């Protein structure tokens, strides 16, 4: 039995030490909002925050996380109140199929924390998540809207 700090709580899990954080979150902790899309840190569907930084959890061995703070999509809305990014996402009706959107929200939340007024170039650099439905135009608009909110 090992321990992770996830969404502000110490949680116990049992998994081989090399298991990617993604699968511990999904299969051991039931946090299925973090998605599997590629397994090679390309698509960003599995993005979580580790100590505030956006990370692709599909290639992070769980034994390297230690006592760092892991934040997943399930806890970005503190006390049930959507964060600025989520509110903008709802206001602009961003998601289509939605499968990539947890990762998009996590990446955009981290971007705004680092750069409260991101330029289009900042958005291009930070939002490398793949969306196949093609929500990019709404994603960009929603990040700008959240920055102004």
């Amino acid at each position, binding site marked *: 039995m090992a321990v992770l700090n996830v969404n502000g709580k110490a949680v116990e899990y049992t998994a081989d030490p090399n298991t990617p954080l993604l699968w511990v979150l999904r299969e051991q902790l039931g946090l299925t909002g973090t998605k599997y899309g590629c397994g090679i840190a390309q698509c960003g569907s599995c993005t979580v925050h580790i100590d505030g930084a956006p990370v692709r959890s599909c290639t992070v061995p769980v034994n390297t996380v230690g006592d760092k703070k892991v934040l997943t999509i399930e806890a970005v809305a503190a006390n049930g109140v959507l964060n600025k990014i989520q509110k903008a996402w709802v206001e602009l009706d961003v998601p289509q199929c*939605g499968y990539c959107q947890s990762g998009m929200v996590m990446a955009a939340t981290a971007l705004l924390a680092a750069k409260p007024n991101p330029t289009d170039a900042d958005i291009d650099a930070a939002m490398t998540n793949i969306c196949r439905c093609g929500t990019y135009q709404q994603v960009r608009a929603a990040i700008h809207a959240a920055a102004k909110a």
Partner: protein
Amino acid sequence: MTIQTSLGRRGFLVSGAAVAGGFSLGFHLPFDENVAHAQAVKELNAWVVIHPDDKVVIRIARSEMGQGTLTGLCQLVAEELECDWNKVTWEYPTPGENLKRNRVWRNFSTGGSRGIRESQQYVREGGAIAREMLIAAAAKQWNVPAGECSAANSTITHKASGKTVTYGAVAAAAAELEPPKEVKLKDPKDWKVAGKPLKRLDTVEKVTGKQLYGMDHTMPGLLNATVRACPVIGGKLKDFDASKAEKMPGVKKIFAIDGNAVVVVADTYWQAKTALDAVTTNWDIGELGKVSTETINAMLKEGLDAKEAFVGNKAGDAQKAIEGAAKKVEAVYSFPYQHHVTMEPMNATARYTADKCEVWCGTQNGEAALAAASEAAGLPVAKCEVYKLMLGGGFGRRGRSDYVRQAVLAAKEMPGTPIKLIWSREEDMTHCQYHPTTMAKMTAGLDAQGNLVGLHIRLSGQSILASLLPQNLVNGMDPIAFQGLMQTGVEAAYGYDLPNLLFDHAMRNPHITAGFWRGVNVNQNAVYMECFMDELAEAAGQDPLAYRLKYLKPKWAAVLKAACDKAGYGKPLPEGRFHGISQVMGYGSYVAGVAEVSVSKDGQLKIHKITAATNPGHVVNPAQIDRQVAGSFVYGLSAALYGEITVKDGAVEQTNFDTYNVMRIDEMPDVETVLVPTNDFWGGVGEPTIAVAAPAVLNAIAKATGKRVRNLPLMHHELKKGV
């Protein structure tokens, strides 16, 4: 208009498998309190259930996969129902219930941009019938004629007495009444809910991680599995060695299915995947191992000049007209295999016992998934059921049930235990039904004034129907190979009125499975047709828009003009930028696009802006159409820039996003949509616009560089001047 109602009402309590099973098993219901009510609430009809607290549950048979059909169909029902949109929620009926109830919800299949255009009438009838029953129940309660009562915003009013009652208060009584035989549907001019840019019903769950997809399904006792099928489609499994893998942590069982794949079942997916990596396999691939992209291309090339070909569209005598023309223009185009790459890899959960087989999955075709489950289980359909979950993308991929079959075969190995079978991205990438590869030889004759006097399009390449639905071939011919080039019809008709044309298809079918891919055959046919039209305009020394307008029929011309007007086509552009145009009719709608691009001195392409016009007939949700059109350019331009599946030693070479690139946000052009509905037909929206993306950009590139790109994807082409 008055129409004969096509819906009957039966006393069906919503306590069947759909809702009860759904609750215990994570089935999607936006409001949990509905579940408790659902046990006792009787439906008004198949489409509408109203709870005592006024909540409206609308049942949607088509699958939501991002395209917004769920919200659009709910708008149509709610419009006729005259209910409060804020009270609306939704649920999926199950395919098994549909069969038990004599297909009361009709077609579950969600493809071909059909969701709204082919079910709009019967879902609107469903809403209208329910409304009439609610009014009748209130009138009966008040002892007044129903004709004196009206309904709006979930409230029934008797004007003379000033009495009002909400739907929830009379729904139970209404459910006992006979449905009316006839209802009058509203004129779209009077729509208040439909036709409006309402927000989607499924957004909050998708930004909080709460939305459950097939991949997220869980239930007590569930085990996880993963699969490795023969890398060569059509190859067989000779033998495998699992001696190392079976000792690994969490592994429960390792076995072969279908004679072509090995499955590992373990406690977790990661354990199953790790163990599968340790399984060695021997495949029997025979002669298929000699097939490569080169041999496939040679096969298609031969078809370009073959004597035998299926004729799909013919007028006058094209060959004679071309022979006698003042000028002959010829070009050969090609289009590669492409992959859908849904964000969520294929997966399904199945539980099998000797007398019941259940499946939980995202599917574009619940009834096909049910049939696949029945066949794989060896049980009659009546003993099988499919519970639909949200799809992490479809694009045609989830219209096929191969992954459902595998999950059921795996579950059969461990009766009673639910098995969630997940494909790795690598398995997904290499075992698809791919966008077919085709080539086209374009031959045209121009007279001395540049007029187009004859056109021959010889298609050569793979048939989707031959690959997936051979029973649908017509005397060996694949009619949908001519999508976008068809003579007539509401689906995909050719828009140019030409005296002499011949469009024929030399069918060449490699062993790679071909299938439906968002936009299907309109995609490559639009590239051939619309890029060559620019070539002809150039040969005639005329402007591409003016040249097209000489031949385009009115509806095709109107939408192209609308896009060009909005884009400012013909007006000066910033230095170094060029416009390219294209149009097509597909899935019942008329669409056009104008691309504004630049190519730098070192050959760097930038797509600055896209202006896209759509005439879908009736507009159900303009905001969702806008999203679908903008998204179509991501999908269509990803394919144009990077989309290419290649074959080596009989197997697909690409395995993941590192070898199969797609567009990211930094390449996304600004997309402006223009809606020009004529309100006289019902067209589809999800697919047609894909087809104008590539040709508009290719035509703009030709203007910018003088280079005509005829073979996709663009990444193989050097756009630098002088190279």
